[in-house]
């Protein structure tokens, strides 16, 4: 039924050259940080729309936040094609869940667990899906937010991030997040984090989306840009005191 049997073939030279063409060695088109936070009515997520090709900011309309079933949202950083593959797995998972038609539906905790198993098992076969995922949602009033990495490391928290977000955004969130953020406060907080990432992360682009999930359902904003300010004294005449520069 579900085809999780994509793996390095069981040849004798498992890590040899012929087998190499059959497993992921490095990512090609990548997305950068994703941030997720819980707020009063549900969860909020932010991700920019960039797909980098190495150091080139090649694609600028990549949707990295997607809904999963009725209750969850997934955000991905890392290899975009692997994210598309993950979406295919999840679509099939949700389809089969819907076809049961038994009044129950997969919640974010279950989807997170499924993803963890997929990522970890692929890692064990030396053929990872090169993504760091944020998975969150709300079901029957209970909010859930978690993350999975390409090697299967997973945990849940009130606020999570991938990539550079872990280093730049989470310290801000640790200081300023609290349980009863309103929607507006949550968006402002996310924008604050995304702005820092825009300044400091080389692979960030200034075109982002905010996704929200509540009991009512999933919405994702139209893409928009953040205002930035480069009007700092330190940026004026940066080479003034540098010996030998002009």
């Amino acid at each position: 039924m579900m085809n999780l049997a994509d793996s390095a073939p069981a040849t004798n030279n498992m890590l040899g050259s012929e087998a190499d063409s059959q497993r992921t060695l490095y990512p090609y088109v990548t997305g950068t940080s994703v941030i997720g936070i819980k707020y009063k009515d549900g969860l909020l997520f932010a991700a920019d729309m960039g797909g980098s090709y190495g150091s080139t900011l090649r694609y600028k309309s990549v949707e990295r936040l997607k809904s999963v079933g009725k209750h969850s949202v997934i955000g991905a950083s890392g290899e975009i094609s692997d994210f598309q593959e993950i979406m295919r797995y999840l679509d099939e998972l949700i389809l089969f869940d819907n076809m049961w038609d038994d009044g129950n539906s997969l919640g974010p905790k279950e989807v997170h667990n499924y993803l963890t198993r997929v990522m970890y098992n692929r890692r064990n076969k030396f053929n990872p899906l090169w993504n760091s995922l944020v998975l969150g949602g709300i079901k029957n009033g209970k909010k859930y937010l978690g993350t999975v990495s390409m090697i299967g490391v997973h945990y849940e928290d009130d606020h999570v991030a991938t990539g550079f977000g872990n280093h730049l955004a989470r310290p801000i969130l640790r200081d300023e997040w609290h349980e009863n953020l309103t929607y507006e406060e949550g968006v402002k907080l996310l924008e604050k984090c995304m702005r820092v990432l825009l300044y400091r992360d080389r692979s960030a682009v200034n075109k982002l989306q905010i996704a929200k999930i509540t009991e009512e359902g999933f919405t994702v904003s139209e893409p928009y840009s953040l205002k930035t300010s480069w009007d700092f004294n330190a940026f004026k005449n940066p080479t003034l005191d540098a010996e030998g520069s002009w």
Partner: protein
Amino acid sequence: MSSIGTGYDLSVTTFSPDGRVFQIEYAAKAVDNSGTVVAIKCKDGIVMGVEKLIASKMLLPGSNRRIHSVHRHSGMAVAGLAADGRQIVTRAKSEATNYEKFVSRHLSCKVPLVSVDAAEAGDTEMVYGEAIPVKELAERVASYVHLCTLYWWLRPFGCGVIVGGYDRDGPQLYMIEPSGISYRYFGAAIGKGRQAAKTEIEKLKLSEMTCRQGVIEVAKIIYGVHDEAKDKAFELEMSWVCDESNRQHQKVPENLLEEAKAAAKAALEEMDAD
């Protein structure tokens, strides 16, 4: 037109002198003894209804589903042996999901690939990438049912199946019998009350009917053909796939179902009053 096929009816791989395969005909009898299944094609979709004869008061209402979703856009109503039906539904689901994922490998690959999974082959691939057309689904299910009439060590499926779906060619209705025959229909009925049901369906002007109206009509037909004397209680199970349901196959919404049941009961009383 039933006759005893003594001697020629022990195996599905035996023809009778007059060219019949009795085992298949006997399989059809299993279908004929089951609760009626009615399906119609309205102008904006398909409506399917099943007369679920209740074997015991202990059964939970809403259990023992006879109509199953096969994919987002299509569903299947089963009559006959329930376990056989489940097998067919599983196969249909599998066909539907595999079609969408289908990858065909270009035949010029030089490196002998150890992995059978073409997704990793890296050669030119074509993926269908769309939901299985209803015609294709019906053909595959029919093929599978027919398969089980070709070998002496397999028995034919003791169930008939009605496939209703909505793809880019519009709503379509197919019926598949235990023999593996599959035809496309405007209206179809299988099971106990099929003769009476077909007569009723023929009276309807299906091309002018919406699914909303169709739900009421199907309920009326099923209540009408239900034999109070022979089978006491039954539960009505209905599903549709239409523009109103966003071309998704789903159970008929609760309030519409109740409306349909009420209308059907009222129609019955009217008939009794005559």
